[in-house]
């Protein structure tokens, strides 16, 4: 009888741990995969770069109990490699940026520019990568995010 109680307690505990784990550990997220997406180059010293990798969107939603306003925090982060279409040089980009919208509405939609260094791994000059992101988030944590353009600049 005691063993049965112990097994039951362990089962309840495991269930609780699993539930808490999924509530805390799984923030709403969305990942966009780029496969050979070639940048539009606006840098005289640069070149179009074919990008591969991911852009990840992590979202946290909360509600201010006083004002009732919903706060949507979106962290965009990229992890990309690239190949220069003129020189064959390799590039990497790994950066993140936060965008926080507080709204009295139940959803928010923003278009933002996400800048990161596209660092050359060789003799080619490094570039600034500008990714235009369309992000829609609602209070339920539903996320719809897209990378709508990739351009490179010299950085000035």
């Amino acid at each position: 009888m005691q063993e049965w109680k112990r097994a039951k307690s362990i089962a309840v505990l495991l269930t609780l741990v699993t539930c808490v784990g999924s509530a805390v550990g799984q923030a709403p997220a969305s990942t966009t995969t780029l496969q050979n997406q070639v940048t539009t180059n606006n840098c005289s010293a640069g070149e179009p770069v074919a990008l591969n990798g991911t852009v990840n969107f992590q979202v946290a939603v909360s509600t201010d109990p006083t004002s009732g306003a919903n706060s949507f925090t979106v962290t965009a982060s990229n992890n990309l490699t690239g190949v220069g279409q003129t020189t064959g040089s390799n590039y990497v980009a790994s950066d993140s940026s936060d965008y926080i919208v507080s709204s009295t509405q139940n959803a928010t939609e923003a278009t933002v520019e996400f800048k990161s260094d596209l660092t050359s791994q060789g003799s080619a000059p490094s570039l600034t990568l500008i990714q235009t992101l369309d992000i829609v988030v609602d209070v339920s944590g539903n996320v719809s995010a897209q990378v709508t353009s990739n351009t490179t600049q010299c950085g000035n």
Partner: protein
Amino acid sequence: MFGKNLIFGLGLAIILVLAAPAFAQNPGFGCAAPGSNSTVNFTLHQPISQTLTNSCTVPSTTVTLGGEFFFEFHCETKANGDFHEHWTSHYNLTGMDTNNIKYVGKDSQNYDLKMDPDGTFPPVPTEDFRTNDKFKLIAQGPTPDMTMTQQFHIKVDANNNVTVEKTGDPVVKCSK
């Protein structure tokens, strides 16, 4: 629909607050022709004078920056009634460090916020938007460049008044 028009008709007043306590104010403007494609523009030039520590050099140097942040806003009422706030932050900066190395920062960043994304009536455009603007300071010669990240807080109240605050000091990252 009349109520929605009335809300848009209240106009969009832009009040820009940068680097408190200094602030600039303009008489405001309205979004014309609700329900049709219309755009109203507003610009603000904000002089900047500040110093920052460049830890990308060894030893660290102090960089004195001058120039301006320049903001372009427009509110746009689409034909379907959607109301958008769009703005572009421009940076036109020059700097000089304690080793007499010159820096140039000339960059921009774009944002667009749809004010009534769930289509509810009225749109109640009460929004706070915190952004991280990134721009480069290109150093003269072999001195490392810097990437500056500056947080801004853009607020729109129920009467379409907009304020912009520079939040905290810029974060500097080495980028060459």
